[in-house]
Every structure is written in C-alpha cells, then in structure tokens.
C-alpha cells in the first residue's frame, strides 16, 4: 500500500513574509533545484458600492478541500517535472495587504516550475471549496466572487 504523506495546507490567519522566506530557506539544501516559482495572493482593499474592504474571512469545507488539494498535488506531479511543491491557504481573517494564498513550485528548469505554479493556482481558484467573506470597514460584509 502506497503511503500518502500528509501535507498541511490551511494556515490560521495571514501567511507572513517570514513564512515565505523560511519555505525558501528550507529548499537551499536541495541542490538539484534550479528554479522556484511562487504565487502569492494578497487581499485587496477594493471599494464596492462605496464601501472599502478591510479584510477577508476565509472558511472552507476542510475535509473536502484537503482531498482536493491532494488531488491537485498529484496531478501537478504527473503533468510537470517538479522536484517539490507546496500549497498554503489561509483560514480565518486576513487583512487587506496581507497574504492569503501561497503556491510554491520547484523544478530543475524554469519552465516546468512556472507552468506548474500557474496550473495549481488556477485549479485552486476553480475547484477548492473555500469561501471568502469580504468584510468592509463599517463591519458589513459580502461574499467574495472570484474572477476568471
């Protein structure tokens, strides 16, 4: 039986720049990596109907999301020549200007890393059962809509 390594994806609150640099630092020991591609989603303070977004509060169908992230992970390794990859997504409140999604792919060559990263980001946006509640400065809210 193939053992499935567990990969934690959900992070409580914002993903910090320090978290990103630690992730990078860990990969310096893997000296057959030639290219890293990183995507970071940052919360915007959009103005919607005159109200400014102060934060997004993320919730998820955790068990289903974890299975989906695992499925995306396996598909990425199957479709691209990757050495490693990581997905981190916030749950809970993330303020405007903070980071809520971090996708990190590493490969021997740049094109595989870049394409895999984009592939993973697109699948997460379309397929991961995660919802963002846009909380305005006046404490009202609306449910976020993802653009294509």
């Amino acid at each position, binding site marked *: 039986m193939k053992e499935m390594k567990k990969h934690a994806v959900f992070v409580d609150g914002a993903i910090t720049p320090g978290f990103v640099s630690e992730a990078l630092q860990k990969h310096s020991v893997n000296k057959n990596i030639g290219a890293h591609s990183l995507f970071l989603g940052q919360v915007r303070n959009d103005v919607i109907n005159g109200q400014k977004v102060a934060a997004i509060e993320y919730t998820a*169908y955790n068990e289903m999301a974890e299975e989906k992230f695992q499925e995306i992970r396996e598909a990425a390794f199957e479709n691209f020549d990757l050495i490693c990859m990581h997905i981190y997504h916030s749950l809970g409140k993330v303020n405007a200007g903070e980071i809520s999604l971090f996708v990190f792919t590493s490969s021997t060559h740049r094109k595989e890393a870049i394409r895999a990263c984009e592939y993973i980001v697109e699948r997460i946006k379309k397929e991961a059962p*995660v919802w*963002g509640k846009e909380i305005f400065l006046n404490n009202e809210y609306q449910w976020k809509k993802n653009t294509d």
Partner: protein
Amino acid sequence: MNVNVLVFGQIADITGKESLSITGVASTDELVQLLQQKYSGLKELKYLVAVNKKIIQQSTELKDNDTVALLPPFSGG
C-alpha cells in the same frame, strides 16, 4: 434514515447554521426540495451539491449517515 447536511458561505447565512440533520429523504433532489421549502432564499442561490465530498451532477440516492454539502461558488485564494 438520517443524512447530515453541511452548508457554507451565503447558504449558511440563510440557514443560520452550518450543519443540519435531515431525516426521510431518499435522494439529493428530495433533500434540495425539502430545504427549499424550509429556506425559500435558497432558490435564488447558485450552488453545487456534494455527497460524501464528491460533487454530483444529477440526483443521487442517499444512504443512512451520508453527508451532503451545498457549495456556493468558490472564492478562495
């Protein structure tokens, strides 16, 4: 027979809670009809239905203790 229903996002706003326990429905179509009677706001919302974490495309028979989730459009990232 009992099914667990999980709701998320704006659907949870309508139901006022994130999980419901429903008895006496044999399929997802029956379940959705029952929920729409109980929560009329549900009719105006777009959502996918998942049974035991798998998204279904058409009405699916339900077994005791199945988990059905109503998933409004995803907006992660």
